[in-house]
């Protein structure tokens, strides 16, 4: 069956083995010559694409819950949205969450996803106590920071390339309300943006929407959203969606003119300086989840999400250049997001490191790849690196420069006999 991930590029012919029980997973891994585990297919590029997919999505049971410690054990296919639906009304929240709740626990660990509180909390793996990992021979390991620790640092952020995550224990955090106290800061250029980020560095959550089509003195202007959970209020929560984007969305509606108009209006409508809002968890963390299948707005050709991080020291100069280049190109998106990361963790392939990260969408068309190649070179010049979860095209030489532990990761895969048993289009392209 034709299969693709969230960016709708690339598309490949793949067979999917859906599993729930350990026995089903065992049978699937043992009968497959080469496969990649897959969750909800919300990585953007080719991380979860291979001719043979082992889907943990049907494994959606909660296994254990301790109300005194907040420790939840669940199967790998449980979605963050499921956890929120059950636990927000009881006053619990994910200790960190990416910008979509439609991802599986297994995927969250394999991508070691991050959220708006990376600088104050860390990555998703920091919420993980331990997990069960099935190797290609069907054996199951318990993995934590102290038990089989090599498997912990290779599997968290390891893009499913070390085995199939079957279940995990994570620690939830207490909240008093399902509302957020948000402060929006409007800035006029990149310098102000950086100053605002640093001024708000002690706020638990922060992220900026950046106008990637601004040029000249306006490069880097943004709306910085910072905040924390409200101290009181209701605990209402639901996963309702507003609308679904049809599959035949006319692709000409997204062009440089309409994007420019959107960006200008969006920026323009926010009040000057700082303003305060009280908004729900869904609006604060998951603004796009309200629209089902929003990836379809880019049409059948799909889109590429481009995310990199630059070290703190070179962030300002680098982003100025890169944003300038993007602005000049006239390509760009509604959804350029800037964020200041905290320190890197010790997982071999986890993406975040201290510095600024920029993520944006590009509609896929003929002229796009040359622009991205130019951006790649600039990111490397400033010592940056790329996020596997978003990537569909970065070259091996470009990718490996950013990851000091990549050879240890490769050696571990080789030593454990995983290289030819578990692979994705991405791992083949990057020699992981």
């Amino acid at each position: 069956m034709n299969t693709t991930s969230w960016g709708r590029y690339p598309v490949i012919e793949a067979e999917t083995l859906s599993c729930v029980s350990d026995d089903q997973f065992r049978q699937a891994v043992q009968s497959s010559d080469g496969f990649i585990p897959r969750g909800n297919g919300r990585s953007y590029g080719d991380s979860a694409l291979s001719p043979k997919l082992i889907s943990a999505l049907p494994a959606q049971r909660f296994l254990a819950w301790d109300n005194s410690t907040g420790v939840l054990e669940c199967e790998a296919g449980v979605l963050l949205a499921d956890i929120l639906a059950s636990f927000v009304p009881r006053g619990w929240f994910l200790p960190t969450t990416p910008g979509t709740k439609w991802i599986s626990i297994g995927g969250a660990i394999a991508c070691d996803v991050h959220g708006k509180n990376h600088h104050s909390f860390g990555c998703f793996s920091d919420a993980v106590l331990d997990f069960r990992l099935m190797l290609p021979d069907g054996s199951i390991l318990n993995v934590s920071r102290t038990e089989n620790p090599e498997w912990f640092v290779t599997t968290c952020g390891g893009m499913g390339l070390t085995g199939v995550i079957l279940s995990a224990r994570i620690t939830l955090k207490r909240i008093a309300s399902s509302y957020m106290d948000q402060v929006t800061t409007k800035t006029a250029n990149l310098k102000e943006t950086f100053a605002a980020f640093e001024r708000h560095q002690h706020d638990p959550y922060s992220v900026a929407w950046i106008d990637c089509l601004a040029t000249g003195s306006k490069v880097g202007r943004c709306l910085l959203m910072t905040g924390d959970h409200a101290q009181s209020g209701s605990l209402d929560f639901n996963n309702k969606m507003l609308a679904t984007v049809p599959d035949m969305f006319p692709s000409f509606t997204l062009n440089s003119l309409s994007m420019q108009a959107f960006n200008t209006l969006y920026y323009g409508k926010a009040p000057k300086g700082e303003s305060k809002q009280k908004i729900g968890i869904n609006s604060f963390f998951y603004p796009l989840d309200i629209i089902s299948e929003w990836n379809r707005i880019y049409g059948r050709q799909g889109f590429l999400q481009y995310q990199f991080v630059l070290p703190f020291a070179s962030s300002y100069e680098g982003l100025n250049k890169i944003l300038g280049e993007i602005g000049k190109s006239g390509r760009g998106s509604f959804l350029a997001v800037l964020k200041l990361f905290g320190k890197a963790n010790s997982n071999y392939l986890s993406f975040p490191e201290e510095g600024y990260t920029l993520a944006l969408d590009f509609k896929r068309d003929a002229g796009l790849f040359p622009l991205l190649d130019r951006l790649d070179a600039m990111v490397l010049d400033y010592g940056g690196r790329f996020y596997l979860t978003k990537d569909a095209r970065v070259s091996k030489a470009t990718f490996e420069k950013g990851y000091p532990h990549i050879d240890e990761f490769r050696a571990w895969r080789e030593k454990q006999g995983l290289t030819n048993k578990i692979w994705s289009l991405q791992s083949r392209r990057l020699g992981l």
Partner: protein
Amino acid sequence: MNLQKKRILILGANSDIAKALCVQFAKAGANLHLASRNVKELEKSANDLRIRYGVEVNVSELDALIPVSRTQIIDNVYPQIDGAVLALGVLGSQTEAQKSEGLREQVLQTNFNVAIHLLEPLAALFEQRRAGFVVGISSVAGDRGRASNYMYGAAKAGFSAYLSGLRNRLASFGVPVLTIKPGFVKTKMTLGLPLPGKLVATPERVAADIMKALAGKKDVSYTPWFWKPLMTIIIHIPERIFKGLKL
């Protein structure tokens, strides 16, 4: 129907329709008692329901073809429940069932005899209490025998007739009996069968329809709805023509 804190027994709780139905009952605040052969799987489902919805869930082993196993449920569980859903059943391969008496026996026993042996003691209890409700999951396959699955269909036809009689008997005692007739449903039971894509429903859809039928005090409910007009047509095709059709 207010299901808050009601204790509902699910016979055949590992079926996909039953699982989806458990979610609906739990969301409505009902406590559940799950019975099926594979207790290990049941325990996992039970845990999931407890954690997710904060309801009470008990589990019992039931190997429905074995009389003692049924007796245990009847003696120990029935007295504590307020309503029951019979969701157990086996499809079996029609072509295999034509050749093997063993498989025939299994299909007929599970879908018909066993279902009745399980529901009859319950009917007696509810009649005496003048309270309770019964949901029986039958099938559109029971509405008319077709070459492709008439063993299963015959058993389900019998079961539908049984439920109709039971409804008639219990009506004056205020005990509703609901017959559910699903069409093609994407479940373990139909895994690997070539199903007509457009007509296939999810277990979640079927479960939602069952809840609606319960709330609406329906007697017989087709799910999804279009099976009702469809089966009305099929039932009325003259046998002379019907026998020549490939169905």
